[in-house]
């Protein structure tokens, strides 16, 4: 086996001799490698690196928002800068942090999990990454463009869903909105092509014996996610095209004076916007479904139901978008329909939570860092789901729409759910990708500081919302009973920031000096753990053959293989 690795390495070097001046190890060689690479693992890394970059940028903006709101009548940011800050925070976090994480994890893990050597279309993969990345860079150049570094630059300032008619030329002169729409249009191209690529990889490059019914759950949920990307990113692109036509060529799509309907923009945006939530959360579900069984020492409980629930979520998520729009004055039939659909989508999500609990029940739990994040995820996502059902009740939503209750709800989904899932996956697969384990002590600090900070930030916001604090206000007056809770929330944001910094230190330190992981540090069961850590460029010396859902278990336990029971 060692021999064949050497031969393959030799062949690799023979095929690609380094040009003079670009020998391995120099900075130029490294940068050149990043620019020209089509390897799914390196691109996965780059997606994740890009994600953390925008996470930091978005996090700094979030801190500014919280500092401004810490006390009444504050003057950290002026109103224009505040509008820019929350718009850029939302856009960066959704499209350039969370989406990059989805694609980063999918890129890195999926080919390894299905026993493939690379993605279906490696060059398209590089194209997807670079367009997404440049889209994000383009968006952020708005800070130094337009009026320049003085003041606030030309940062988009119409919130991350940019409601019409605020986005029309009359109300948003300058180029702020154009940065937003063109940035998302560019990155959308990368996202859609990436989605097609991942789906083709899953359908066409599974190793022998890996039927759909034996696919690891992470891959399954990525498959559903990418289906949603392929189906529901184009509406966003279409809406952006209309916005660009309207702003540059005077088209009339959302202009009420010409008979147009600003509400149509909301429909188009949320037709994309709600599936987007599931695009982000399903891969997190997938991570949880990989981590919980391994750290409970039990196979996942109810695999078929998990798959069915994911597919159900995929389909139902297409029919719930207007629950973001209860307050625009829809007719009662639509309100009832979308409220009902919202309740229905809670069912498959509930099934998943029960299945994860069922997996843990009676298991031999190992409280490693990935598992801690999963357990926190279960609690937080449950609460996020429950406040979601509350907001799905149209009358309740009429009361609380556009208040801090909504902010608290979706940050519970996105931070408490998705970010915690990403952290779990990061701690779980980091040893595979780098060959070194993340430091446990720093990991524990990261987990506890971040979790406490998270709850301190967002728990009070539920009450702020019920006390009537609207979202997107840049300051508030004294004496409304909001001071204490806002201060608490700001302190929480700072603590969360410290947690994130601990994590980044851990990541950088462990990548260089962490404990050597070995091929299979967690005693896991899926194919990515059969190869070396980090995996060679060709992933597997020999394309594996699979006979059950836990191929590595079969290898380790030939006396009691899974396929006897499937």
């Amino acid at each position, binding site marked *: 086996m060692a021999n064949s690795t050497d031969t393959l390495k030799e062949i690799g070097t023979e095929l690609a001799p380094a040009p003079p001046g670009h020998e391995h190890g120099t900075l130029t060689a490294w940068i050149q490698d990043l620019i020209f690479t089509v390897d799914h693992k390196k691109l996965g890394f780059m997606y994740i690196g890009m994600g953390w970059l925008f996470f930091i940028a978005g996090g700094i903006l979030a801190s500014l928002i919280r500092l401004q709101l810490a006390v009444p009548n504050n003057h950290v940011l002026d109103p224009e800068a505040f509008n820019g800050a929350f718009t850029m925070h939302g856009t960066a976090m959704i499209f350039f942090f969370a989406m990059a994480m989805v694609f980063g994890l999918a890129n890195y893990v999926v080919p390894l999990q299905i026993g493939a050597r690379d993605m*279906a*279309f490696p060059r398209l993969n590089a194209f997807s990454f670079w367009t997404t990345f440049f889209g994000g860079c383009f968006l952020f150049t708005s800070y130094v463009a337009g009026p320049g570094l003085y003041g606030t630059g030309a940062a988009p300032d119409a919130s991350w869903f940019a409601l019409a008619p605020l986005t029309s030329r009359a109300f948003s002169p300058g180029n702020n909105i154009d940065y937003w729409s063109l940035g998302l249009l560019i990155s959308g191209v990368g996202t*859609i092509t990436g*989605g*097609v690529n991942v*789906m*083709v990889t899953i*359908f*066409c*490059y*599974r190793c*022998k*014996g890996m039927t759909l019914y034996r696919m690891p759950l992470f891959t399954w949920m990525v498959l559903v996610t990418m289906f949603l990307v*392929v*189906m*529901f*990113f*184009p*509406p966003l*692109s*279409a*809406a952006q*095209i*209309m916005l660009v*036509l*309207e702003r540059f*060529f*005077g*088209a*009339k*799509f959302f202009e009420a004076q*010409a*008979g*147009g*309907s600003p509400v*149509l923009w909301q429909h*188009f945006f949320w*037709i994309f916007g709600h599936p987007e939530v599931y695009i982000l959360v399903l891969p997190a579900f997938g991570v949880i479904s990989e981590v919980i069984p391994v750290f409970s020492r039990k196979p996942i409980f109810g695999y078929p139901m998990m798959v069915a629930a994911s597919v159900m979520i995929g389909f139902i998520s297409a029919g719930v978008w207007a629950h973001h729009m209860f307050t625009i004055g829809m007719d009662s039939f639509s309100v009832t329909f979308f409220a009902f659909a919202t309740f229905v989508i809670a069912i498959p999500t509930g099934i998943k939570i029960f299945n994860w609990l069922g997996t843990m029940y009676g298991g031999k739990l190992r409280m490693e860092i990935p598992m801690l994040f999963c357990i926190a995820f279960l609690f937080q996502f449950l609460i996020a789901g429950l406040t979601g059902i509350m907001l799905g009740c149209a009358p309740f939503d009429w009361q609380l729409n556009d208040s801090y209750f909504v902010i608290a709800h979706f940050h519970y989904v996105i931070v408490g759910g998705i970010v915690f899932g990403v952290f779990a996956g990061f701690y779980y697969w980091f040893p595979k990708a780098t060959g070194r384990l993340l430091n446990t002590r720093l990991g524990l600090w990261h987990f506890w500081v971040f979790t406490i900070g998270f709850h301190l930030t967002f728990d009070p916001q539920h009450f702020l919302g019920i006390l009537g604090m609207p979202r997107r206000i840049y300051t508030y007056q004294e004496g409304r009973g909001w001071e204490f809770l806002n201060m608490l929330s700001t302190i929480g944001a700072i603590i969360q920031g410290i947690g994130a910094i601990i994590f980044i230190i851990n990541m950088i330190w462990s990548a260089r000096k962490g404990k050597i992981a070995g091929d299979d540090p967690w005693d896991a069961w899926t194919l990515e753990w059969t190869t070396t850590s980090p995996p060679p460029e060709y992933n597997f010396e020999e394309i594996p053959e699979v*006979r*059950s859902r836990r191929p590595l278990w079969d290898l380790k336990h030939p006396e009691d293989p899974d*396929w*006897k029971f*499937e």
Partner: protein
Amino acid sequence: MSTDTYATPETEWKLPSPRKVGITLVILTESSLFTIFVVAYLFYLGKSLNPPYPREVLEFPWLGSFFLFSSSATVVVAEQRLKKGDRGGFHLWWLITILLGAGFLVYTGSEWYHLIYHDGLTLSTNLFGSTFYSLVGLHASHVVVGLVLLSLILVASLTGNIQHRHHEHIEMISWYWHFVDGIWAVVVTVVYIIGMQS
């Protein structure tokens, strides 16, 4: 019962062709894009506040439709020729397809010229103008992409770079071309047949 034979796939491990799955997904995602523009057109039908209105200025695109729909047939003929190894026939029918596609674009160009300079309908005139030009223009841009693909294949084939084993590549391009045709059927129905009522 031996579980061994049950777990081992007896038949050969067969997976779908990446090209076919890929182009199917591209068609799906493009359909989703078109759907939004179609919905916008239908939603704003009859809601324009100022003329010109569709029934006054639109004419049924007999010629354009004839060009485009028949090109779907010629591309199939070209494909069959390639499968049979008749490269001359392939080139001929492929070229006819390109000419028909180009003819469609010329027809659209003249239609737009007429609308802009005689009827005064532009993108910014009214809701009808905005939705009409965006939907028909999106389709026309897909025709342009299709023509680029078709022409590249013709050049590659004339320089001897297309072999019989490439017939699946060719087939994928014809799938895309059929999709562009299918979208035209939807556009004709929505913009002209339904649209001309108001």
